[in-house]
């Protein structure tokens, strides 16, 4: 077909290709704000020429495919950063709540309540008459400390079970994302058989992005176009269209609450526990918040409560109450360091009778203030701290004053919260950079598309002109006949 009809054919095909180009451009412009959308490009080439004796005569243009502007390497960096961000955000939120519990900057706190108890012992020592009001002061200060410790403990445990609740809610969400990825896998395998399934891949990439924010995953595309999703530890979650379901089950060995969830993955041999694999993403962050951050804070509080109770009790037992009795505890003796904060309470005798407070060093004489003095002096005494797991009477911790320990908890919590805050800031900058890198490659530029539109418009007009010229030529030919 090298005649005039052949020219009509070339121009007609060119106009179709141009229209397809306009369509691609309009598709790009329409999706300028669609999250995860990758700009699409029409790929065209010159058609194979027709060989005649005089040479090869061109046959116009043809469209090969429409591909998407996509850089898998940038995509991987984005996935990793998203998963990092999910983890940092949930841990940072948890630490903000924890540091609020230990915050003494806006009102009274634990160190403050402890200092006031030592002062109350001191005031009891300065009363020569046996101290009715001063004894009441000691009991109030002690009750205040007990309340403050138990309130802090309750708030930390509340934070811990909040993290647990979020874990239990997050797992079904993750499951539904996994199912949608598997479904898209099926459609992409089917679609690729005809043409590259660009928009489905964009959708799947966006789902993978959501998924890594929730749970740290590794993923790679198979040759058939499906994507395989693995946990950080290598357990497959999605293979082709198959989803290994995630579920939560209670953890009877959890030191804080047997109802706390472990994350299980279905397999042919029944559910397996993959909790230890989940270090990244929001889920990993929540697990760390629950099992490490809040758990550590609760244990620091326990250490404080246990050592306060045992050190005060040790001195108190040596003294005499106004009723002449000795060898009594001041705080109810804690059974172990674990959960000592939760169990902190005044001894029943002290709660019932102010005269039981042992101010006297050698007997019940009302002016004997030696034991009260010794109790007040605990304030500046270094105590070998009993840590969780220590047997009673054999502390393994460093020697510190208890006020120093209370202050160091504030410092430690602050350092941790601060490091997460700055990590989060760094993450935001990194995410911004990687998203810009992605946009640089995959993002839609209106300027670019409009320019392309004008080019296509001109090409369309030129092709139309060719057709009308050919028409004139044909008319001329017909009029000769």
């Amino acid at each position: 077909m090298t005649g005039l009809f052949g020219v009509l054919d070339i121009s007609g095909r060119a106009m179709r290709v141009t229209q397809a180009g306009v369509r691609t451009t309009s598709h790009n412009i329409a999706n300028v704000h669609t999250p995860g959308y990758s700009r699409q490009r029409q790929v065209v080439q010159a058609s194979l020429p027709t060989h005649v004796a005089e040479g090869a005569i061109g046959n116009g243009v043809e469209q090969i495919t429409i591909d998407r502007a996509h850089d898998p390497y940038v995509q991987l960096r984005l996935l990793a950063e998203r998963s990092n961000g999910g983890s940092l955000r949930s841990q940072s939120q948890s630490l903000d709540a924890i540091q609020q519990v230990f915050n003494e900057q806006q009102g009274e706190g634990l160190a403050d309540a402890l200092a006031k108890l030592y002062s109350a012992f001191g005031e009891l020592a300065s009363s020569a008459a046996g101290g009715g009001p001063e004894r009441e002061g000691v009991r109030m200060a002690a009750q205040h400390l007990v309340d403050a410790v138990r309130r802090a403990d309750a708030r930390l445990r509340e934070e811990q079970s909040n993290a647990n609740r979020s874990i239990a809610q997050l797992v079904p969400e993750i499951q539904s994302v996994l199912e949608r990825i598997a479904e898209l896998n099926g459609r992409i395998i089917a679609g690729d058989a005809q043409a590259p399934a660009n928009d489905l891949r964009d959708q799947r990439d966006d789902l993978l992005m959501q998924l890594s924010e929730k749970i740290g995953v590794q993923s790679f595309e198979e040759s058939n176009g499906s994507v395989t999703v693995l946990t950080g530890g290598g357990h497959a979650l999605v293979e082709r269209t198959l989803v290994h379901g995630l579920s939560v089950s209670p953890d009877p060995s959890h030191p804080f609450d047997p109802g706390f969830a472990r994350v299980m993955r279905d397999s042919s041999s029944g559910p397996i526990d993959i909790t230890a694999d989940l270090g990244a993403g929001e889920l990993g962050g929540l697990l760390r918040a629950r099992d490490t951050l809040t758990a550590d804070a609760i244990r620091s509080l326990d250490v404080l409560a246990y050592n306060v109770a045992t050190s005060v009790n040790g001195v108190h037992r040596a003294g005499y109450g106004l009723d002449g009795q000795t060898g009594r505890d001041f705080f109810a003796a804690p059974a172990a360091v674990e959960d000592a904060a939760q169990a902190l309470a005044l001894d029943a005798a002290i709660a019932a009778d102010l005269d039981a407070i042992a101010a006297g060093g050698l007997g019940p004489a009302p002016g004997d203030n030696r034991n009260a003095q010794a109790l007040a002096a605990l304030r500046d005494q270094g105590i070998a701290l009993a840590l969780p797991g220590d047997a009673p009477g054999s502390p393994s911790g460093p020697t510190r004053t208890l006020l120093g320990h209370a202050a160091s908890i504030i410092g430690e919590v602050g350092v941790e919260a601060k490091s997460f805050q700055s990590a989060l800031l760094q993450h935001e900058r990194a995410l911004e950079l990687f998203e810009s890198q992605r946009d640089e490659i995959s993002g839609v530029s209106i300027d670019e598309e409009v320019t392309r539109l004008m080019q296509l418009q001109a090409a369309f007009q030129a092709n139309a002109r060719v057709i009308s010229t050919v028409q004139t030529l044909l008319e001329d030919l017909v009029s000769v006949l």
Partner: protein
Amino acid sequence: MRVTQNMVQRTALADNLRVRRQLLELQEQASSGLRVNRPSDDPSDASRAALLRAEIESGERLAKSVEHARARLETVDTQLGHANDVLVRARELATQAANDTADAGSRRLVAAEIAQLHEQLVATSNLRHQGAYLFGGYATGQRAFEQSGSFADGSPAPVVSYGGDGAEIELEIEEGILVRTTLDGRRVFLGDADGSGSPDATREDLFDVLASLWQSLESNDRAGIAASLDRIARGQEQLDVERARVGGRLTRVEAADAVLSRRGVDLAGQLSSAEDADSVEVYSALAHQQTLLQASLQVTARAIQPSLLDFLQ
């Protein structure tokens, strides 16, 4: 490098957000007056502030303790003064009565006054301060000295016995430093420092001094009266020594008071430097940040708008 609409918007928004976040932080500092509002703002200073507040609390408690110690020692000093007054008056009376011109009748009149002085001394030795008997050691709930018998013609002079435990109550006036705030009444009034039950060789039982003087006056025993004069003098010396002791302790308490108030000012300054915002710094940073926000908003408004479409007809 391709620059797309999304990139421009994202960068503009992110920068805006950062400026606003810093603005919020500065506003918090300006409105609370604190540079450290939570531990993460400055972990080491937050921890230091908690310790400093505990130190200040302890200082305030010690200041109260110092007040107690001072009040108690001053009361003791006043009572020792009263006891001394008693002895001075007894000495005057004994000197008169020892005179040759005195006769049995006038000595008997003097004896009546000595009996009253004895009563005063017992009252003084049972000094109460805020409900506590200060000369009885730790046994502050009961009278330190009990008198048995009374002054009556022909009967033996009354005997005064000690009911306390001889202790001196200590109070903390500086961290770890204790000062004795009461005196051992047995040593002061009975001259019995070692608790043996009888006066030491160099000391006098003040009650007995007056009682035997009364006895001598009653029995018109001039030699006995003259001997009492020496014993009164020794008793006065005994009280002088105790008053000097109290004076020394008061000086120590005053010194502690000065140290405490100086340290209180010091600690308040340290706490302020640990947690307070420098208002000049905060306000200038706030103004700077506000300017930055306006600039950032203006730039954003201009950068987001134009595209090629704005220039095509």
